[in-house]
């Protein structure tokens, strides 16, 4: 083995702030960590299409329907960019999908909660995308080039997602009593799960240290969560939503909000598969993946029949 290929050389490249590209030397642990993290991220985007998709056909105005469709389409695109980034690490999309469907790969637990009323679409955009953006902005500086480039593109597209969600919440809070009740109900159900999206406390997070050393992750779970809390609570208060936490307070000295303890039992229960929608989400994915098989086969068969022609005309 060449000396410069050692893990020390790799670490010094990372420490110098260089980006790693797919053909560069990387320790096996780095590659594995990336595949796990990028694929989990990709699957989250794709599975995340389902709860919002649940309201497309019931969107209450043409404008709302367009926004929601375009937003979900973006999420599909994000899944696609991230699958491509994972593929540069030597894993195929076929394998990635197999791992999702077998349960070997995870996706963000937040999508195992149901979207029950129209305000949930607002809450998802505002809180769930809002939490995701905090994480994604930080990941633009991740050390793996293809992942970082995907995140840059994703962040650009994300900018309208949170705003459209907050706009829905605002409209509902300025609307009828029924609409206000729907908005508060959505707030009550999505607030805590959105805080859990950042993952366990740094002290309990199994993968954090390597990820920080390798600059895959640039900020810790707790740092990111705090950023989200600090910017979101004033937004809620501005439109009259009540934070479903009896004991949160603003620490005037630090400018940070302190919240009640998060219910980590719920977090681990949903991760373990016992959220309201875990089975439904994966079953949906499998169903339409399987129903698509004959279509993909047809496309391949057609190409094989016509490939000669195509090369000639290409």
């Amino acid at each position, binding site marked *: 083995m060449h000396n410069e290929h050692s893990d020390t050389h790799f670490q010094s490249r990372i420490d110098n702030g260089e980006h790693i590209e797919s053909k560069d030397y990387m320790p096996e642990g780095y590659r594995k960590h990336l595949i796990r993290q990028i694929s989990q991220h990709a699957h989250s985007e794709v599975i995340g299409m389902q709860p919002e998709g649940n309201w497309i*056909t*019931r969107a*209450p*105005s043409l404008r709302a329907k367009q926004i929601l469709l375009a937003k979900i389409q973006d999420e599909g695109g994000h899944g696609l960019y991230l699958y491509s980034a994972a593929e540069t690490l030597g894993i195929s999309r076929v394998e990635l999908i197999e791992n999702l469907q077998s349960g070997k790969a995870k996706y963000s637990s937040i999508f195992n909660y149901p979207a029950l009323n129209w305000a949930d679409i607002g809450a998802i955009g505002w809180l769930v995308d809002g939490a995701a953006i905090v994480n994604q902005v930080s990941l633009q500086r991740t050390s793996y080039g293809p992942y970082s480039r995907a995140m840059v593109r994703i962040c650009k597209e994300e900018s309208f997602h949170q705003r459209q969600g907050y706009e829905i919440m605002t409209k509902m809070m300025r609307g009828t009593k029924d609409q206000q009740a729907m908005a508060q109900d959505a707030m009550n159900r999505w607030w805590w799960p959105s805080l859990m999206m950042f993952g366990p406390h740094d002290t309990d997070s199994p993968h954090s240290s390597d990820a920080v050393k390798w600059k895959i992750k640039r900020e810790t779970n707790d740092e990111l969560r705090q950023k989200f809390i600090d910017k979101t609570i004033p937004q809620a208060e501005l439109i009259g939503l009540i934070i479903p936490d009896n004991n949160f307070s603003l620490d005037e000295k630090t400018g940070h909000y302190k919240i009640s303890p998060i219910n980590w039992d719920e977090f681990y229960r949903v991760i373990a598969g016992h959220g309201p929608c875990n089975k439904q989400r994966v079953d949906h994915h499998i169903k339409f993946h399987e*129903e698509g098989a*004959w279509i993909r086969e*047809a496309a391949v*068969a057609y190409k094989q*029949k016509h490939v000669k022609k195509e090369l000639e005309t290409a």
Partner: protein
Amino acid sequence: MTTKDAAYTYTIRLGDDALILGHRLSELCSRGPILEEDLALTNVALDMIGRAQALLKYAADIEGKGKTDDDIAYRRAEINYYNHLLIEQPNADFAHTIARQLFVSVFEFLFYTELEKSRDETLAAIASKTIKEIKYHMQHAIDWTLRLGDGTSESHNRMQTAVNDLWMYTGELFEMDEVDAQLMRDGIAVDLIPIKAQWHNDIKTVLSKATLLIPEDTYMQTGSKKGIHTENLGHILSEMQYLQRAYPDAVW
């Protein structure tokens, strides 16, 4: 019938085709055969909803009662929707979706190419914007018709079934009534007789290239011009109108 009444009905009919097809296509979100195709179909759905918005807003303007595009889109009874029966047929499988897209997009391509010359400036402007989108929808539908028709034996059979199943709804695309007649006199509406011949020609070419058979002449279903639909539309509307009807005072 005044020209205004005729223009209102004519515009609503076009708007409803876009509205209901946009709805049907939007049902496919997260259900595509591959992620890329999921996004492609969503793009078509978005084009349709955008067109519906433009047409229904124009219908509201013609009517002149201060309604919005949403009032018209969401607050009519089933009998007052005038989309073609073909448009509301379900996404039974991807072959049915593609066959419907093929029949509709080839028709719309021919139709909107003519409507661009309409003496109604608003309709002409909507047509010239929409024709670019339709070209893409048509290319997408033709390419998939070829892949499915000339792909595997399963895809061939499914595509042939879909073409056969939907054929009886295609005759209605070319029906004309007193609304069309009156507006044709004013140089506003499109004459569907030459379009019918061209459509048959184009569809035959695509189907035979896709190794599919042209369905035999059959009885053609009819009714949408009078608001008589298949049972599908009621279900579409009960979903689409749910919030508007449950909370009539709410602004969304």
